[in-house]
């Protein structure tokens, strides 16, 4: 496995912080001056020089039998500019403009709760723990849109084994970073930070549950949850918590952010289900991101099409009440 260390990048190629900040300022000024003369689309690209923000590292991956076949991945552009990451704003393009503020190196993930002993994992150690696999997964947002994303990571179960949980551990809780550098729009969003998500132990141990470090063969852009996140292809996107700093093994069902905001709308399980819609809108269809507007509509599948692999986890459960 080859992970390019920052030290391999010649210092001459690294833009100094002040130049980089000045560039932003200059760009903002230029954008304001030239606004009248430019089309909206070009303006968008100039006001937000994304490539300057994302210092990607190439990742070496091995193929995986858990990767979804017969699907066309959504473009890198769309995956990295159409995000829900409310710590960085509620607009879809806000995270791609604001998430550069998150400092992802150094980064450690704390593990505690019902484990043999507390541990801390450095991000580099985490990435080397197991060979990285490319996993193409469908991604279904509760807002009724969908993507296909080529993630990079390995099964969370590999990591959980290293954590040595006790038999008393029935659930896993995932906590995101708790340092929103600034409140994006103080009047516009009111959630209880840090972002918290959780899984039943058997869900967490399922091979499809991916501890994720990258997409499209490179490290995660910040707006997609750098440096490490969880990905659950059969659940609505909000279950796949981003930028994890703390993983807890617990005895009882942990608090989860959206469930706290509205228990009627957001259940603990949040499995994709076209026949159950607890949110105001229908879940029967989804809009395929990147498709032209007249043919973006696509039928949503139970468990987002992963029923063959995951339906057994919920055998005998009423999916209507356990939403």
């Amino acid at each position, binding site marked *: 496995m080859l992970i390019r260390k920052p030290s391999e990048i010649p210092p001459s190629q690294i833009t100094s912080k002040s130049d980089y900040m000045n560039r932003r300022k200059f760009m903002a000024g230029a954008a304001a001056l030239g606004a009248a003369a430019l089309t909206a*689309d070009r303006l968008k690209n100039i006001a937000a020089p994304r490539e300057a923000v994302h210092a990607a590292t190439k990742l070496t991956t091995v193929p995986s039998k858990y990767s979804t076949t017969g699907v066309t991945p959504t473009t890198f*552009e769309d995956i990295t500019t*159409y995000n829900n990451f*409310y710590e960085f704003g509620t607009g*879809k393009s806000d995270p791609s403009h604001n998430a550069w503020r998150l400092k992802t190196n150094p980064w450690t993930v704390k593990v505690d709760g019902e484990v043999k002993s507390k541990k801390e994992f450095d991000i580099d150690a985490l990435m080397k723990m197991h060979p990285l696999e490319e996993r193409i997964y469908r991604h279904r947002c509760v807002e009724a849109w969908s993507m296909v994303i080529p993630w990079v990571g390995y099964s969370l179960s590999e990591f959980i084994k290293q954590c040595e949980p006790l038999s008393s551990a029935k659930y896993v809780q995932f906590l995101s970073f708790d340092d929103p550098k600034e409140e994006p729009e103080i009047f516009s*969003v009111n959630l209880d930070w840090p972002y918290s998500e959780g899984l039943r132990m058997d869900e967490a141990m399922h091979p499809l549950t991916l501890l994720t470090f990258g997409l499209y063969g490179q490290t995660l852009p910040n707006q997609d949850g750098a440096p490490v996140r969880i990905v659950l292809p059969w659940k609505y996107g909000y279950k796949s918590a981003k930028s994890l700093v703390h993983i807890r093994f617990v005895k009882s069902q942990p608090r989860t952010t959206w469930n706290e905001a509205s228990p009627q*709308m957001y259940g603990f399980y949040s499995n994709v289900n076209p026949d159950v819609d607890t949110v105001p809108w*229908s879940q029967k269809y989804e809009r395929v991101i990147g498709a032209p507007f007249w043919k*973006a*509509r696509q039928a949503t599948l139970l468990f987002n099409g992963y029923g063959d692999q995951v339906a057994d986890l919920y055998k005998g459960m009423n999916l209507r009440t356990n939403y």
Partner: protein
Amino acid sequence: MSNRAIVILKFIVFPACLIPFGMLVYRGFTDTLGPDPVATITHTTGFWTLYFLLISLAITPIRRLSGKLVWLIRFRRMLGLFAFFYGTLHLTTWVWLYSNFDVHAMLHDIAKRPFITVGVTGWTCLLLLAATSTGWSIRRLGGRRWTTLHRLAYVAAIAGVIHYWWLVKPGVHTPWKVTAVLAVLLLARVAWQVKESARKRKVAVAA
């Protein structure tokens, strides 16, 4: 303001009101509606419906500020009709892009989903307002009845704002701005009523 100036101004305001629509059409043809074009179209038409409703509801309070602004009333019908225009485009996205013309599914939505019920209610108000927006309608209904009917503009705006609140996720408060503007516009009317009745009382006492 002279009649001539108003006519000239109308020739400027009318195409200006079509800019958001023109931008959508342009972006549609150049494939620049963004990653989620359906959402872009839906949100743009929805927002402009609300904006035109609020602008047309702002005419009366602003006009009352000064006798020199009375001419503004001549633009109210045009602005209100643009609210109906964008509202109809917004409704069309639901009928076409979300429901694919499935009448059964739409009736189910109207019955089951409160944000759609209130949205369709708001649009129905706009339809009634647009249908009775001609001089002929005013004469036919008589000024008093027409004025009463056209209070539906308040119902439409309140329905639009509720529609927005019921749509956003819990904890998300993005509709607060349009809500604040609508509240100010409605309170301005209450304040004016209070002031007017006080003035009338004074006149009565003086007499």
